[in-house]
């Protein structure tokens, strides 16, 4: 049925998952930083974090991807010209894709972590400080392990949306699942077959992720009494 394109499609699936996981890691990092800024006492940091989430939510993902992919080399080149160098840069689509998707979903992760930090019991942090833990140690030992529990449902949701958003990166020629399907569709002149296979593989990722998330939530809540 796939006329020999099966291994390319599978490689594309691997690339999609890899891009998704890298972008998720970046999004979590930015989300932690963003929520820390949003909850900080500094007005400048709060304003900066609000600007970040406002802009990212207001502009389509595709447009942001185009700005990062075509804008970054232009910026570097004009800066180099300003310094008197003449260089040409081709931006790697993998890095452009991961950073764009990571930055976009970092804004959503910011909101997820902000909610999770607010859901923590304040008394525990006070107790940690009272027994002599410093801010960093208290954050590492008391706050961070519990934040995951509150953030997990939100992050799971974010992952399910993020993995679908990675399909956009095919527009800048990264050979992920949709791009390979597109190439196969053009070569075999069977576009429906190959795009349908791609759709089914995205559904497969969603299904596997949902099962994994249920397990992860059960694990994160293992110490919590229910009912």
């Amino acid at each position, binding site marked *: 049925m796939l006329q020999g394109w099966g291994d390319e499609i599978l490689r594309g699936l691997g690339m999609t998952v890899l891009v998704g996981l890298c972008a998720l890691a970046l999004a979590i990092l930015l989300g932690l930083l963003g929520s820390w800024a949003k909850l900080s006492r500094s007005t400048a940091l709060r304003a900066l974090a609000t600007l970040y989430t*406002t*802009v990212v*939510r*207001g*502009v*389509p*993902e*595709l*447009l*942001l991807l*185009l*700005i990062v992919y*075509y*804008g970054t080399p*232009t*910026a570097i080149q004009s800066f180099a010209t300003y310094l008197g160098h003449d260089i040409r840069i081709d931006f790697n689509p993998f890095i452009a894709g991961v950073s764009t998707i990571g930055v976009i979903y970092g804004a*959503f992760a910011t*909101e*997820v972590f902000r*909610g*999770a930090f*607010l*859901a923590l019991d304040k008394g525990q942090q006070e107790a940690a400080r009272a027994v002599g833990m410093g801010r960093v140690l208290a954050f590492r030992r008391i706050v961070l392990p519990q934040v995951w529990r*509150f953030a997990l449902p*939100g992050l799971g*949701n*974010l992952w*399910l*949306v993020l993995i*679908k*958003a*990675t*399909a*956009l990166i*095919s*527009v800048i020629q990264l050979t992920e699942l*949709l791009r390979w*399907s*597109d190439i196969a*569709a053009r070569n075999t*002149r*069977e*576009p*429906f*077959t190959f*795009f*349908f296979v*791609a*759709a089914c593989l*995205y*559904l497969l990722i*969603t*299904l596997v992720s949902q099962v994994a998330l249920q397990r992860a939530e059960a694990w994160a809540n293992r110490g919590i009494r229910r009912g």
Partner: protein
Amino acid sequence: MESLFDLRALADRLPQAPVDLAVIVESLPQMLDGLVLTLELTLLSLAIGFAASLGLVMLRLSHNALLWMPVYGFVFFFRGTPLLVQIFLIYYGSGQFRLELTEIGLWAWFRDAYFCAVLTLTLNTAAYTTEILRGAIRAVPHGEVEAARACGMSGSLLYRRIILPKAFRFALPAYSNEVVFLFQATSLVSIITLMDLTGVARTLVSKTFDVYEIYITAGLLYLVVTYGILGIFRTVERRWSGHLRARPDEARKRRDPLAGIATPMS
């Protein structure tokens, strides 16, 4: 003194300006044309998609497996796959069935990128809206439905007077998110050659290479409309659900720490 509209002259006098204002001023009329197409696609798909989802949610809530299972499958497929794949599946995928489509006279439609864009966006938003409405209808307190039945209401009257007015109020916050996501998702139609706001911006950039000026102007236009949409929904929500809003002191007490998170798939 310079006139406010003479931005070009102003820009010429600023040789070191980081962005070229003249480019923005020149491209603005074309971009606004693109924005009109973007809004047209959004509103058309939302209107048809919403009407379709009203019917679909009734089927979804039916107890007959022959009725709810196809709708479940439809919603599962359209929520679980990327919109770009759906657009390719319909626009390019229909080419595989060209002969069959020509025979039944539909090929002229599927050859048209505009039709395929509206069809895909409509199906996509119908799936998400069905799921939003399903949650909202199930959230209507059972006691109110029983009370209405006890008063002798049934079927369509019960839905029209009791269930739907309440469900629409519950659905409003999630639906406002869906409207914003669909509005932004229309940017994908530029990939199948339509000249929406993103399409116009991409064409202009490929001609002028003024990446920043053009993409950032387009981004600002999207930003303004997005927050305009959210503003409209906030007003509607205050009108419709004012009586359900907690008093400020109560709201503070039982504030949900996760409230206000815009999750595309909730």
